[in-house]
C-alpha cells in the first residue's frame, strides 16, 4: 500500500474502519513474550554508558500537578539544563513537559538552551471537553511559546468505534499546532487491548501525529514494554509504507535506569538506529532522571553515591 492509497483510507467512516480492523492482529501472549525476551538483554560497560546518556537526552522532564507553581517549573527547567551540576559531560534533557498556563515561565527559563517546551493540552488528561475548547487550549499554549503539544485522544469516541471523530480531532489539533510538534497520547491503559493500541497508533499517524505517546501518566497501567513494542512496530511499518518517520514517547511508570535501558533495547531491535534519537524516542518521566544520573556516576566512579548527592527539584 502506498502513501496515496493511505489517503483514501480516511475518505469515509467505512474505509477507515475497514483499514484499522484489517491491520494484522496482535497476539497478547506472543508480544508479551517478545518484550520479556528483549528485557533479558545484558547491557554492560560501554553499551550501558551510551544507553544512559541517550536516555537522559530523551527525557521529557515532567510535572503535571495541580500544585505546580512558577517556582516549581523554574526549578525543573534548571534541572533539565544541567541534570548533574557536578558533571558537565551530562547531556541536557529533551524537553520540559508542563500544563499550558505555565508555558511562559518555562520559555523564559529555558531561553537559549535548545530544550523544548512541551505543553499538555486538549483537556488533558481526560480529553473530555468540546472540540473548540480543546483547540483554544492548544492555540494558547502555542502562542505562549510551547513548541511541542501533547494532546490526548478521545478514548470514549475511539472505544465506541467513532474513528472519524478521533481522526478529525487530531487533524484539527495538528492544524492548531502550526509549527509546533504534535504528540498524540493514546492512553493505552484505557484502550485495554494490543489490537486497539495498534489501531489507535495508525489512526494517529494517518491524522498527522509527529509522535505517538503511550499515556498521560494519570492512568494505571501507563507505559509498558509490550505496549511500547506494539507502537514501535506501528511506526516502523508506517515509515516502510509512507516514508514518514513518526516518533514514540513512553510515558509514566518508567522509574529506573534499568527499565529505561530495556526500552532502548526494544527501540534498537524493533526500529533500529534511526529511532535512537531524542527527535524520535522520548521518555515522559520525572524520577527516572535521578536514577539515570546515579547509574552514570556509578559507571564513572565505580561506586554508588547516595540520593543526597543528586538534586531533587
Amino acid at each position, binding site marked *: 500500500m502506498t502513501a496515496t492509497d493511505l489517503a483514501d483510507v480516511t475518505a469515509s467512516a467505512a474505509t477507515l474502519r475497514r483499514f484499522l480492523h484489517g491491520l*494484522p*492482529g*496482535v*497476539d497478547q*501472549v*506472543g*508480544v508479551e*513474550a*517478545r518484550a520479556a525476551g528483549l528485557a*533479558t*538483554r*545484558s*547491557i*554492560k*560497560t*560501554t*553499551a*550501558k554508558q*551510551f*544507553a544512559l546518556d*541517550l536516555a537522559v537526552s530523551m527525557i521529557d522532564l515532567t510535572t503535571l500537578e495541580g500544585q505546580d507553581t512558577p517556582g516549581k517549573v523554574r526549578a525543573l527547567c534548571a534541572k533539565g539544563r544541567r541534570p548533574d551540576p557536578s558533571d558537565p559531560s551530562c547531556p541536557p534533557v529533551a524537553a520540559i513537559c508542563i500544563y499550558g498556563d505555565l508555558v511562559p515561565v518555562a520559555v523564559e527559563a529555558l531561553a537559549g538552551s535548545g530544550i523544548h517546551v512541551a505543553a499538555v493540552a486538549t483537556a488533558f488528561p481526560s480529553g473530555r471537553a468540546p472540540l473548540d475548547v480543546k483547540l483554544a487550549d492548544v492555540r494558547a499554549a502555542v502562542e505562549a511559546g510551547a513548541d511541542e503539544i501533547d494532546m490526548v485522544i478521545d478514548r470514549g469516541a475511539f472505544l465506541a468505534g467513532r474513528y472519524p471523530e478521533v481522526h478529525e480531532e487530531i487533524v484539527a489539533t495538528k492544524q492548531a499546532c502550526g509549527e509546533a510538534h504534535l504528540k498524540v497520547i493514546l492512553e493505552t491503559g484505557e484502550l485495554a487491548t494490543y489490537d486497539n493500541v495498534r489501531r489507535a497508533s495508525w489512526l494517529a499517524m494517518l491524522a498527522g501525529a509527529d509522535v505517538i505517546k503511550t499515556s498521560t501518566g494519570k492512568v494505571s497501567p501507563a507505559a509498558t514494554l509490550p505496549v511500547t513494542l506494539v507502537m514501535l*512496530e506501528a511506526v516502523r511499518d508506517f515509515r*516502510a509504507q509512507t516514508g514518514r518517520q513518526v516518533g514514540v514517547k513512553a510515558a509514566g511508570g518508567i522509574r529506573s535506569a534499568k527499565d529505561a535501558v530495556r526500552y*532502548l*533495547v526494544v527501540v*534498537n*531491535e524493533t526500529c*533500529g*538506529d534511526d529511532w*535512537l534519537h531524542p527527535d524520535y524516542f522520548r521518555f515522559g518521566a520525572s524520577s527516572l532522571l535521578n536514577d539515570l544520573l546515579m547509574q552514570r556516576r556509578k559507571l564513572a566512579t565505580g561506586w554508588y553515591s547516595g540520593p543526597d548527592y543528586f538534586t531533587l527539584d
Partner: protein
Amino acid sequence: MGFEYAPAPESSSIVDIAPSYGLYIGGEMIDPIDGTRFKTVNPATEAVLSEVAAAGPEDVDRAVAAARAAYNDRWSRLPARARGKYLYRIARILQERSRELAVLETIDNGKPIRESRDVDLPLVAAHFFYYAGWADKLDHAGFGPDPRPLGVAAQVIPWNFPLLMLAWKIAPALACGNTVVLKPAETTPLTALAFADICRQADLPPGVVNIVTGAGDTGRALVEHPGVDKVAFTGSTEVGRQIARSVAGSRKKVTLELGGKAANIVFDDAPLDQAVEGIVNGIFFNQGHVCCAGSRLLVQESIVDDLLDHLKHRLGTIRLGDPLDKNTDIGAINSPEQLARIRELSSVGEAEGAERWSPPCDLPERGYWFPPTLFTGVSQAHRIAREEIFGPVLSVLTFRTPAEALEKANNTPYGLSAGVWTEKGSRILWMAQRLRAGVVWANTFNRFDPTSPFGGYKESGYGREGGRHGLEAYLDV
C-alpha cells in the same frame, strides 16, 4: 554512533571440569574395563574440555548388572513416596546448581547461555518436580490399580538438549520404579556426568542411575543387552530404525522419539509480528538442532512478500557468536559432522534452484558455525523440503487455501509437530484435528511443559514422553 552491545559474557569459573571422567556405575565413578577414551570439545572454540570413557561391552554389562541389583534389592521395594522424595531432592539440587549446569551445557553443546539458562534448566527441574509428584499416585494414573515397573531401562539420548533429554528419560523411569542405564551423546557427555554427581549428592541408592558414556557402539551394546527390559531412544530416524530391528522379537518395550520436518503454517489473518517471532523461535532456537523445529514455513501466498520483509528485517537483528555471551541468540553448531551435513543440504537446496538468503553475519574464525539461512521458492519436491537438516535453515513454501496447507503439511514421512498461525479460532481447531503431528502449536512454537505429552506420528517415532502419557512407557501395562 549506534547502540552496540558490549560483550556480556557469563563467567565460566563456576564450572569445574575434570581432566578425565570414568563411568558412573553402581554409585561410583569407575574406570572402564574394556573401553577406550575420547575427547569432548567446546564447539564454539574447538578447545578440548575433557577426556571421557567410551564404555565397552563389559562396562555396559557391569552397568546393567548394577541397575538390575539396585532394582531387585532396593528401588522396587521402596515405598512409592520414598521414590518421590528422592526425585524432589534431585529437582531441588538441579535448581540450586542451575547456573553451573547452564554454563556447563553451553560450553559442551554450543547453545547460547540465554537458552540453557532460561529454557533448558528450568524445564529440567520442572520435569523432575512433575514426575516426583506422580511417584505415589500411579494407582490413579489410569493404568490399573497397582501398575508395576518394567525393571531396567536402557536410555540413549541426543546432543541437542543433553540435560533436558536426560530429565525426560530419567524422571519418569525412576518415578515408576525402574532403574536406568543412560548413555549421553558422545559430543555432549558433561552434564550427564554432572548429573551423576547430583545423584550422589541426593543420596540416591547406588545403581538406580548409571551413566555410561560412549558413541554408537556403546549405545548398541546397551540397547541390545539381554538384561534390559525397556529401551528409550531419542535421536535420528536412521538409528531409531536399527534399534527397532534389534529389539524386535524380544520382551523389551520400546519408545522412539525421532526426527521431524515440521510445518509452521502462517495464514493471511495471522498476528504478523508474533508469527515472525514464532518462525524465528521455530527454526533458529537452539541453532535449529530441534527435532520438532519448524523447518518448513508454509505461508499463504497473499502475504508472502510482507511476511518475508518482516522476517528478513528481524533476522537482521539476530546475534550470532560466543554462546556464553548473554546477548547471543544463535550459538555454535554442535559438531563438525553436523556442520558438514547442514552445508551439504544447503548446497543441495541451491543446486535445486531455491533462492538462498542469510543476513549479514560475521562467523567466528574458530569453532563450528552456520549463519541463519532462508530458502525461498522451495517446493515439495526439493530435498530441503523433505529431509531433516537439523540446523538453522528454513525452507519457505507457499499455499493458497487451508486444504492445500494441510495437504502440504501432512505430505512428509515425519509427524512430530506443527504450528498454525491465525487469529481465527475455528481454523485452528479445524487444522489441529487434521494435522498428523504429535504436537500442534497454535500461535506459538517450540513451547514445552512437563505436563504435556510429546511424541510423533509416522517416522517421527512412537510412544509419548511427558505428562500422564509419559508414565505408560515405564509401566507394565
